[in-house]
């Protein structure tokens, strides 16, 4: 195996890891009990999944075609900044409109 093929394989494995994480977080969205715990799964794991995938694609294009894609870098930065913001906004909206918490939740305030 040449050096290029090894780098390609690493990129492909990163994409595969990202897709497995995406499936796990989608399963979490179905199986967890209420909105707040679901948003834990929706913001954290799926953000890491898409970041891993985009980084893998970036490395792939870099090694095969020597092409540094500015658009992919911009997309990675944009996702970094917006994923936590979107999660917080939707949680706050749910809390302010009094979506009910799961029964055994402790609420101390």
């Amino acid at each position, binding site marked *: 195996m040449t050096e290029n093929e090894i780098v390609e394989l690493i990129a492909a494995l990163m994409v595969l890891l990202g897709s497995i994480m995406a499936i796990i977080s989608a399963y979490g969205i179905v199986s967890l009990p209420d909105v707040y715990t679901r948003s834990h799964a929706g913001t954290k794991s799926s953000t890491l999944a898409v970041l891993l995938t985009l980084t893998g694609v970036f490395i792939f294009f870099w090694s095969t075609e020597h092409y540094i894609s500015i658009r992919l870098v911009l997309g990675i930065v944009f996702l970094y900044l917006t994923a936590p913001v979107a999660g917080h906004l939707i949680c706050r909206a749910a*809390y302010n409109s009094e979506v009910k918490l799961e029964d055994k939740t402790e609420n101390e305030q």
Partner: protein
Amino acid sequence: MPVQFLLNLLIAILWVFLKDEDTFEVPTFVAGFLIGIVIIFLMHRFFGTPFYLKRAFSMLKLLWIFNYELMTSSILIMKQILIPSATFEPGIFSYETKLKSDWEVTALALLLMLTPGSVVLRISPEGNVFYIHAMDVKDTKPMVLKSIQLYEKVILEVTRP
């Protein structure tokens, strides 16, 4: 602090001139800039102000913490999804921060969204009380409080050096 940056730039340009190449070469300029950084770092106590790259360094530290927390928190969440423990209790607790300006509070809220097992539900109108939803209160609350202390320290290093 701008004085230090300008001096660094001057050293880099001088380095390009003293190399006496035919055309302007970017690698030479970068090498001059790096040498300038070393010189300014050795001399910065004579300026009376802190070293100007200290702030950039703590920004890098903040970025590293951001990545590290993203990794650990998603591993924790995936463990929770795949092996659901029967005893986990979600809960809400509040935390009062000592950070003041808008920028600092925003950065702390973004970091808290990515800490293992915590989501910021709401911030009080004065901007100093966070209401945090935790996945498993008994387990994660001490851990979250410990990492909040670390974030506050690093954020303060960036904004008020």
